């Protein structure tokens, strides 16, 4: 290839484990009895359900409508009856349930009427709206709504379109297999992207450990009426990360805190291009995707899976084995552990990696950092992970931020090489979430202060008004009394009564202030614990009171 490639700093070479899964033919997974389709499968606002429990739905029917600009619709992946709408366990590390629509399938897999889009005659805005309503979101893992990424806006032309076939995470092969088998479809999707973005340079980056995919994409590209350059890039993790692939192919870096479109580059995953082609040329919404099922299974393979299929069914299909210790969604470097093997496959599910103690031995106990800087040598973001770790551990989040904590892409290279086996990425996630929480808290407390101040102001004002009124009244009364000397004893008695009432009120207030709790005279550690709990509760209370929309008036 004639193109000069650039190299990014850092990176690691974990064992690929690609051959396990990319040699078996691709099949469609069997239709499950039940599909659980989360309403939030993309970044942005969750979809709004537009069906009712008990309603019959057809395959490809809209069941959750996109809500706002940064959103994407969800669809029934097969025909059947909606049996539930409500919280269910979803593929998220937190294990917290989220809103889902459950469909009991009827086995007929009956399609709703759908027709291709004539994208060349549609206005770009209409086309993007259709794509949003067809549920398109990035299939590389980030699941950002594609319609948004395909909107270059007036100020951001995207002369360069990069199609990401890097797939640098170990074990995962779904993009590799897709490129081998559906190169033409992928490039048809690319044609639509090019149409919307007005790109003049189109690059497909594929790691050089996928020769078959490179061949098939090259021969498909040769048939096109526009130029697509298929480039073999060196296999190194995280070379398939968007920022790293951009640097490898163009030598440019995405400025910190900015988007690649700010430097005229947009990146899409090959799976997204394929889904886009299905949407445009067949009118099909995004209801299935290719998933690698691998790791501790008998027959690691890639399967075409309907969104909402329980992961467990796929593990059974690939042959589950004794000694399974867990299930990851994604690869071993950035994947997340699943709270339950029953969670459904979602748009972001590129890989189901079954763990065992042989393949993924428990991580050894961490030792102190010896400042060997292997982590820094491996960090593709050119950070100093050992310093970030030191600051995060000490709770010095300000310094961590100064050392560019938020430029960390959580790729895990640092943890991977650390001879002290420190779970570094964990510390960064912790520090980031603490900083977010503090900022949120600060906003909440600013708001609370404003409210308090306003209330004080209002009370003062009311008091003043009242006092003025009273004074006016008293004046009037005195004038009256002066005119009528017969009622002279009364004011004295009134004043006394007022004094007594005030003293009582003061006492009351004081009592409330020192109201004894049954937790006095506790040992200091207990006391501390209680204080901590109280602080947490106060925090939660404050957060709970915080309005969702800042424009709500205090």
């Amino acid at each position: 290839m004639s193109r000069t490639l650039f190299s990014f700093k850092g990176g690691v070479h974990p064992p690929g484990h690609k051959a396990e899964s990319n040699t078996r033919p691709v099949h469609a997974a069997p239709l499950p009895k039940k599909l659980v389709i989360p309403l939030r499968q993309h970044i942005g606002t969750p979809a709004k359900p537009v069906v009712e429990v008990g309603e019959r739905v057809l395959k490809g029917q809209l069941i959750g409508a996109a809500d706002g600009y940064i959103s994407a619709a969800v669809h029934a992946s097969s025909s059947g009856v909606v049996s539930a709408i409500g919280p269910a366990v979803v593929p998220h590390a937190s294990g917290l349930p989220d809103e889902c629509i459950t469909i009991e399938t009827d086995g007929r897999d009956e399609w709703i009427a759908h027709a291709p889009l004539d994208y060349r005659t549609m206005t770009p805005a209409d086309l993007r709206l259709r794509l949003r309503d067809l549920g398109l979101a990035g299939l590389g893992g980030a699941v950002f709504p594609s319609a948004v990424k395909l909107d270059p806006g007036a100020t951001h032309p995207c002369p360069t379109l990069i199609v990401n076939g890097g797939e640098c995470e170990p074990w995962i092969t779904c993009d590799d297999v897709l490129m081998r088998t559906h190169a033409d479809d992928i490039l048809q999707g690319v044609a639509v992207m090019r149409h919307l973005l007005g790109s003049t340079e189109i690059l497909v980056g594929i790691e050089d450990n996928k020769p078959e995919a490179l061949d098939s994409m090259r021969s498909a590209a040769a048939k096109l009426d526009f130029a697509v350059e298929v480039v073999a890039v060196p296999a190194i993790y995280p070379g398939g990360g968007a920022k790293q692939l951009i640097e490898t192919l163009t030598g440019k870096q995405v400025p910190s805190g900015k988007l690649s479109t700010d430097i005229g580059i947009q990146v899409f995953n090959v799976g997204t291009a394929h889904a886009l082609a299905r949407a445009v040329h067949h009118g099909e919404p995004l209801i299935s995707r290719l998933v690698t099922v691998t790791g501790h299974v008998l027959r690691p393979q890639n399967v075409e899976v309907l969104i909402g299929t329980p992961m467990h069914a796929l593990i059974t299909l690939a042959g589950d084995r004794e000694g399974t210790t867990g299930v990851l969604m994604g690869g071993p470097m950035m994947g997340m552990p699943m709270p339950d093997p029953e969670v459904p496959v979602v748009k972001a599910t590129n890989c189901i990696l079954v763990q065992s103690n042989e393949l993924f031995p428990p991580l050894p106990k961490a030792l102190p950092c010896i400042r060997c800087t292997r982590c820094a040598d491996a960090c593709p973001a050119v950070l100093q992970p050992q310093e970030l770790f030191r600051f995060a551990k000490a709770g010095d989040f300000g310094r961590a931020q100064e050392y560019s904590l938020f430029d960390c892409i959580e790729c895990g290279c640092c943890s991977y090489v650390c001879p002290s086996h420190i779970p570094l990425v964990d510390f960064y996630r912790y520090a980031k979430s603490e900083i977010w929480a503090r900022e949120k808290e600060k906003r909440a407390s600013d708001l609370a202060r404003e409210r308090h101040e306003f209330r004080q102001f209002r009370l003062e004002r009311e008091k003043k008004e009242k006092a003025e009124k009273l004074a006016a009244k008293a004046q009037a009364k005195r004038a009256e009394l002066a005119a009528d000397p017969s009622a002279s004893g009364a004011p004295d008695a009134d004043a006394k009564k007022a004094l007594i009432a005030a003293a009582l009120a003061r006492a009351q207030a004081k009592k409330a202030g020192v109201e004894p709790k049954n937790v006095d005279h506790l040992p200091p550690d207990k006391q501390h614990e209680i204080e901590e709990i109280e602080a947490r509760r106060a925090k939660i209370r404050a957060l709970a009171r915080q309005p969702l929309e800042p424009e709500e008036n205090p």
Partner: protein
Amino acid sequence: MPAPFVLDRSSVTQVMAWVLAALLPGIAASVWLFGPGILITLSLATATALAAEAAMLKARGYPAKPFLTDLSAIVTAWLLALSLPTLAPWWLIVTGTLFAIVVAKHLYGGLGQNIFNPAMVGYAVLIVSFPVQMTQWAGPLSLTATPLTLAQSASVIFGGDLPKAMLDAVTMATPLDALRTGLLQQYTVDEIMTQPIFGHYGGIGFEWLAGAFLLGGLALWALRIISWQVPLAFLAGIWLAAGFLHFFDAGRFGAPWFHLFAPSVMLGAFFIATDPVSGATTPRGKLIFGFGAGLLTIVIRTWGGYPDGVAFAILLMNLAVPLIDAWTQPRVYGVAPRRGKEPPA
């Protein structure tokens, strides 16, 4: 459990084991050229270091096993032993090792926390407190009439104060000592270099020992246990500083090659200045750290009160590490070269 779920196979133990292995050529050369005394020194330091480490871990409430098996205490012990005179009395070795492990390592917080290189702290304490005993270097075998056997070496090391005549028969001034003494007596460098102790580049035997350390150091670099910046900058610092002085007054200042081919320089460049814990961490910082240590070594050798300056030079640079690190932060991906300056929106 959080991602990543795989690790490469490195561990602190493995890193330390490679460092120890890379010291073997130097140890072998020492035995070959200076007699078996070094083996006793090494064993004694190792035993003391392990006992001190275990005791300190227990006292500080740490589990013994993961820390004893990380081999870091043995690395400290070996580096100290290899810096000490081959026939130093036993209590000198024990004192130095204890100081290195107990004070320089554990009182500073244990593995990964020490600001100063523990072995060099031990060395510095000894040379300041016991300058006389710190000269008990075995002479190169090729120059001594009756080489000591292992048992004889042991009796020198454990035998306490030997009669001066006997000690003089087996020990010899190091080339650096000889140069220093000669210069103090107003000889020129050329005159001094005619003494039998001097070889092609450094001292007889000593230059080969230096070569053996260099070999082990290069192996560490090839294995990526150490980075190239510190050793290269350290050697460059020595070479440039010594070369500069030598260029202006070859009669009063030793040649750069002579300064480079001292065992302490090669040991310092590849094994001590590269200590990750007490050294600089950024790529540019490592260059500054190494270069500074090299320069200071020559400055101390030339104008200081001690014949060799590697230990003090490294300790001084250890002090500067926080500053060096803070000033040499590399440019983060996507961050504009001038930090902190936001381009106007």
